[in-house]
């Protein structure tokens, strides 16, 4: 295969996998900026994936599939919101419960699909004129489906909302110092509910892209820890949506190395090694990041994970 084509293939797979991670990461950044830690990403993502699969399989309607995937994931995030915001449950444990719930539900509800080996047609790619003709990167970035294009816009949109609007300022102040935000008249509970819901919605989009974009059949546990990698990506990106783009693509590339090497006919390293890579790399990068930032905790919302009540 020609060198340029190989690079384009790698980049294309990277963008596909990276966009899946990016949605979930952006959502979790929004949630965590308001002070709520949601470890339920893996569960919400797989529920979004199952919903979109079921809807496309039964109706063939992609828009409906995406919208319902978002809704389903959002509803699951509201369970976490109610438990952690209103009932002040330990957020780590509540998030874990959401993940277990989502994985279990998807396995229970998805069993007929898994047994029938049902398949759906992936959402068609829409090449963007002119841009797609840029050498090497053109077809990797601009011959994708519409959900991927949405991820490009959304990263900037989330950054803009968080850092350039009043609402974003409120979200961040609630995440930094909820009691002060409260005394300034910001509705801490409402902001946290909304931010958690935003996280849930984007995670649903992640799951929908996973199915509608690239994995048009269903099997148990199809998300393969992507939700957890997104949680780690939030830390790598220092809670900044723009850094999240780089992080998501980097991990997207690591996640696709296996299929990349297979597609160019390179089998010298066992496939299991590549399968482990995103996870070992996550630990490694987390360690390096925590090490360099241990002096100044950059970006961590000060009230992250702490329930807020007016009495205390």
């Amino acid at each position, binding site marked *: 295969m020609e060198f340029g084509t190989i690079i384009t293939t790698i980049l294309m797979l990277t963008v596909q996998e990276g966009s899946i991670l990016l949605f979930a990461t952006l959502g979790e950044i929004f949630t965590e900026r308001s002070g709520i830690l949601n470890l339920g990403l893996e569960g919400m993502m797989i529920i979004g994936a199952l919903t979109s699969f079921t809807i496309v399989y039964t109706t063939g309607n992609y828009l409906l599939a995406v919208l319902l995937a978002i809704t389903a994931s959002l509803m699951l995030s509201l369970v976490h919101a109610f438990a952690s915001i209103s009932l002040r449950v330990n957020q780590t444990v509540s998030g874990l419960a959401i993940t277990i719930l989502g994985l279990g539900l998807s396995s*229970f509800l998805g069993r007929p699909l898994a047994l029938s080996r049902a398949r759906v047609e992936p959402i068609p790619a829409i090449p963007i004129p002119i841009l797609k003709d840029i050498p090497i990167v053109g077809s990797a970035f601009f011959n994708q489906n519409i959900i991927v294009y949405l991820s490009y816009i959304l990263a900037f949109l989330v950054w803009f909302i968080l850092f350039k609007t009043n609402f974003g300022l409120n979200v961040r102040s609630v995440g930094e110092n909820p009691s002060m935000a409260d005394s300034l008249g910001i509705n801490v509970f409402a902001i946290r509910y909304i931010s958690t819901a935003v996280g849930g919605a984007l995670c649903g989009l992640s799951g929908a892209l996973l199915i509608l974009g690239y994995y048009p059949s269903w099997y148990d546990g199809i998300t393969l820890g992507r939700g*957890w990698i997104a949680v780690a990506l939030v830390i790598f990106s220092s809670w900044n949506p723009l850094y999240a783009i780089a992080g998501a693509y980097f991990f997207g590339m690591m996640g696709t190395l296996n299929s990349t090497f297979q597609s160019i006919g390179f089998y010298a390293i066992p496939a299991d090694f590549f399968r*482990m890579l995103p996870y*070992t790399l996550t630990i490694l990068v987390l360690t390096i990041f925590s090490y360099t930032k241990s002096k100044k905790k950059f970006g961590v919302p000060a009230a992250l994970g702490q329930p807020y009540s007016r009495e205390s």
Partner: protein
Amino acid sequence: MFGLNRVRFIARDKLSKKRSVGISLLSLLLAFLTSGVMFLFTNVDPVQAYVNLFGAFSNYALLSEAIVRAIPIMFVALGLTIAYKANFISIGGEGQIYVGGIIMTGLVIWQLDSNLIPQAVFIPIAIIMVFFGTGLWGVIPAILKAKVGVNEVLTTLMMNYVAQIFSNFLVIGPWKDPEGHGFPLSKEFPAYARLGLIPGTTINVGILLGVFAALLCYVILSKTKFGFEVKVVGGSYQAARYAGISYTKVVCLGMLMSAGFAGLAGMNILSGVTGKLRPDFSPGYGYTAIIVAWLCNLNPIISIFGSIFFGGLLVGGEVLQASMNISVGVTNVFQALMLIFTLSGEFFKRYKIVWRSD
């Protein structure tokens, strides 16, 4: 919104035992009802489903099977209890099960070649090796957390994937039995590397070890200086520092034990049940144990019974899958709902609701 501004929560002064138990039972009942609704929506007869799900507790053979499954859950849950008491949120039980299994299988294969360990003491030596070997694996996230501040939830979870993939790699590749007709299974463990069965049951003697481990855990946590230090560290990092307790020491030692116990769970599955290494040999015991540990309120003794209960649920889930063609995932749903409702119930143990009349 929703008239919620009329609701106020007032901290309870003290909570009667009766009311506390009442709230817990109500939480579980709600978990039942919620999954019942889920069954209704998916055209499954809820009564029939529950009869199957809890069938393990009405039938001697199934109960015996439930206890077999409870053993690994118990070991992991005990380990997690120690970690959680120190406020170290490890979810690495599943990976530690695999590491325990890998060490055990490696030891057996090495012994089959070299025959250096006297067969009579093979199991005791294996227990020590598996415990400390897996323990060291567990110390990795502890050091990373204590020295560098790396989030332990993420590291322990990522290590689960690494351990499981590596275990499967070994059994499909280098450790595959050459005379196994190409099946992805290791060599059969010899009799001296197997755990005996309690006469008249299918339960292996690992249950005795499990109960002993629970008692040991209880003693360590409530009667020793280390147990006290774990609680101080778990209560407040600052308080521990003022008291001159080394966070690093407590967390590393705690995780050594935590992962060590989980490693024994892996050993138990291989030596007590399967008799060889298989791909994906743990059906998520490490995750079930997280729920057991929390639902049993981080109490090692209660965890014994909690593990048997969840072992029964897993068996029930399989009965459900076989008889009604429902995914075993349904037990995970039920577990997660129980956890969510019970945790939420804790709030109502601490606060009472007052409706303002104005």
